[in-house]
């Protein structure tokens, strides 16, 4: 069976890969959007935290013998805690300055973190096995769907929607959104805004680490795994509209699919298609697809 001259298996395979990549784009750009919303900082170290999450899983397994499920819980907490420390010691000194300094500081942090991991583990990737419960796959008739990949897509979709629900539809999320609009006023109502900012940063970083743990069995665990991914994620955030939660989720998955489709029909353009889309979107809607014009 062919669709536009492409065998269905190949098409579905690429769409699946696109959906997987899209899950990671969505999780990472969601964390970036949350951090940007409240701290007004573009976290250049986001890719490094994603990498730390993957290494967290690797180290928990190989040094402490804790399996994937423990890593899924512990690694984001540990990396999130690192994020909290960095926010308390460094980032909070920059809030009254130009936003650019936040970008520069996190860029420096990314260099340090990646350099340290490269010294410790070398540049080549380390393997991480798929957990036993999720190995194998389903035969859907028209294609073979590995269980682990299905799990990644479903899990990240759930995490994304939960985050969206909490921020847009709960009281806690209401405080957060209010604090982005007017921190002084929210502070006057007796809410500890600095602590909220710290915890939000920790949460965003934790999301990146969670994506890292989920990515570990699919890609190899390596010090530079986040470095190139992060630029694509930046493009996703720009296309979706910076700071927009729904924009981050929808464009994340959507662009993953577009990338997968491009790989089928015109492979040469698959690495640049996202940047081309970004250019077109910027020409038509400078604030991004879901962003509000300021």
């Amino acid at each position, binding site marked *: 069976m062919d669709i536009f001259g492409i065998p269905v298996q190949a098409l579905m395979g690429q769409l699946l890969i696109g959906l997987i990549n899209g899950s990671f784009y969505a999780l990472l750009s969601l964390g970036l959007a949350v951090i940007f919303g409240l701290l007004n900082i*573009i976290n250049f170290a986001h890719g490094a935290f994603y990498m730390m999450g993957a290494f967290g899983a690797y180290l928990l397994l190989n040094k402490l013998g804790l399996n994937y499920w423990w890593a899924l819980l512990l690694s984001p907490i540990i990396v999130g805690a690192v994020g909290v420390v960095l926010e308390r010691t*460094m980032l909070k*000194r*920059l809030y009254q*300055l*130009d*936003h*650019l*300094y936040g*970008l*520069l*500081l996190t*860029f*420096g*942090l*990314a*260099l*340090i*973190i*990646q*350099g*340290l991991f*490269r*010294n410790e583990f070398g540049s080549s990737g380390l393997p991480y096995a798929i957990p036993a419960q999720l190995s194998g796959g389903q035969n859907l008739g028209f294609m073979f769907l590995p269980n682990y990949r299905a799990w990644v897509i479903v899990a990240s979709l759930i995490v994304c929607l939960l985050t969206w629900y909490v921020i847009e539809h709960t009281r806690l999320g209401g405080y957060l959104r209010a604090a982005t609009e007017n921190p002084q006023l929210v502070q006057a109502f007796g809410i500890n805004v600095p602590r909220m900012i710290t915890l939000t940063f920790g949460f965003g970083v934790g999301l990146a680490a969670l994506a890292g743990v989920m990515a570990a069995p699919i890609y190899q665990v390596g010090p530079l795994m986040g470095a190139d991914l992060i*630029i*694509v994620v*930046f*493009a996703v*955030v*720009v296309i979706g509209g*910076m700071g927009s939660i729904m924009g981050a989720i929808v464009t994340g998955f959507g662009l993953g699919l577009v990338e997968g489709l491009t790989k089928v029909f015109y492979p*040469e353009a698959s*690495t*640049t298609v996202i*940047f*081309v889309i*970004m*250019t077109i979107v*910027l*020409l038509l809607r*400078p604030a991004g697809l879901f962003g509000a014009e300021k």
Partner: protein
Amino acid sequence: MMVVLIAAPFLGVYPVFMMKVMCFALFACAFNLLLGFGGLLSFGHAMFLGGAGYAAAHSAKVWGFTPELAVLFATACTAALGWVTGLLAIRRQGIYFAMITLALAQMVFFFSLQAPFTHGEDGIQAVPRGKLFGLIDLSQPSAMYIFVLLIFVIGFALIYRIVHSPFGQVLQAIRENEARAISLGYDADKFKHRAYVLSATLSGLAGATKAILFQLASLTDVHWGMSGEVVLMTLVGGMGTIFGPVVGAAVIVTMQNYLAELGAWVTVVQGVIFVICVLLFRRGIVGEIGNWLKKSL
């Protein structure tokens, strides 16, 4: 500064090292024209350095251009690239601008990786240095040194001139308070676009010279790591100062040359310098000295 640059090879400084510093210094000065005086942080300037490198290397090696023509051709190419990308990028400000330039540069990177004439991972190697105006043989180290020195001095003088011209003054006014500059009747976007194109063109000049000097155009120069490095050079030297980027480039290139055997630790050291500069010395080396002397350098 001129005296130092002319005398350095006689004092036993390795000339190739000096030429490398000059290429990066010109690159950093061009970058600072945009960041320091225009307030626009581009995170994609590697596309101009690397793009010009490919254009110069290809035209010199495959089309047999003489070095001055190759450099001019490459500079013209980056001017065109800057014109187009600038139109897109200046539509947004601040971090948005930074991320858009980064994404545009990434497009150029993937293009360089895949286009047949760039030879992918290998880059364009063994580029002939050729004869300047068909007369002066640039394979002579002293001729090459004078060539690079001249280009650097011309580029630097041009930047100095731009900064101290009415155009530069308006640019700084826009950086300080864009709304006020617009209300005074200046078309801020037009000024920013011009500054962007000028910065791109001069970065291209640096990149083309670098390609002829090292006889090589490679992916390193278009990779986004290079965009980060030029930010670091400017930040260390002092953004918004005339001499800062030169000092910053000298410091960073020296560091990379002499710490090369430490491998990935160089990245860590660079990251630490970044963090320290942002947290403690936002004025940079030259900026701090200028502040101490109560003079703008």
